[in-house]
């Protein structure tokens, strides 16, 4: 693995550990947005969204720019490719496993239903 500054790596991990914050980064990758826009898109309160953006800002993943009375969020200077890739790949492994586990659970449920019916008959 490539060497990274540890503090940077850890702050990014913390920032990326949340689905909403990952969604915000994806969104800002498409276009800059105000906190109000983001709060609406993710159906959150303004305060809640401010907190998420604050965490991303601290990790250097997002920067804020004030134009008049509107504060606009944009992607920060920090590249998140490696950090995001780490979590993403790990998620993919578990996602794949759990999709299979879903099928096993479904089958057990069906079997239980059938067995229950047999007992009653």
């Amino acid at each position: 693995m490539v060497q990274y500054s540890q503090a940077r790596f850890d702050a990014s991990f913390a920032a990326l550990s949340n689905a909403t914050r990952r969604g915000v980064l994806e969104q800002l990758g498409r276009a800059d947005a105000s906190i109000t826009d983001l709060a609406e898109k993710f159906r959150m309160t303004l305060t809640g969204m401010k907190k998420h953006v604050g965490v991303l800002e601290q990790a250097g993943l997002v920067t804020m720019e004030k134009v008049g009375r509107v504060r606009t969020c944009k992607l920060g200077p920090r590249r998140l490719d490696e950090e995001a890739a780490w979590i993403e790949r790990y998620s993919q492994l578990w996602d794949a496993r759990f999709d299979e586990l879903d099928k096993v659970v479904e089958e057990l449920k069906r079997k239980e239903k059938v067995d229950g019916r047999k007992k009653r008959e």
Partner: protein
Amino acid sequence: MDARRESEVALMKNRTMVERKSERELVVTRTFNGPARLVFEAWTKPELFRRWWVPKSMGMSLLSCEMDVRVGGRYRLEFAHGDSQAAFFGTYKEVTPHSRLVWTNEESDQGSVTTVTFAEKDGKTLLVMHELYPSKEALDAAGTGAADAMGETFGQLDELLVTLGASVGRS
């Protein structure tokens, strides 16, 4: 608008959440549409466990799977990946039916301790898997290992799931 629609689609499927809680801890969370006793069964019966632990997209096959699920009991999983083989093994430390499993990973001295909890609510089960590694480096390496395992073959997964989904059908 697009983002909203996407997040709605994401909500329909049970999402796997992976969080790096600290330098040494990783937490994976997922809900399953079934009671805890069935989900627990799928984690503790080798014939069920082996059906999902090694998804085909990993490009690996499971050669053997032995699980003696009781406190102090041992497990051993043997994998083949191309020409190479690997074994994973350890000891069950806690076994509380339908609610909690703890085991060690002893294939290296950097192995994690894994705790899985099953919490049932309204017929669904919230599963939380917590992995505690002895060092930050060990956890970094584990993620890289998963990346290696999944990496290039992951593109095949969508196709595979469609095929499997079609053949299994819905109840």
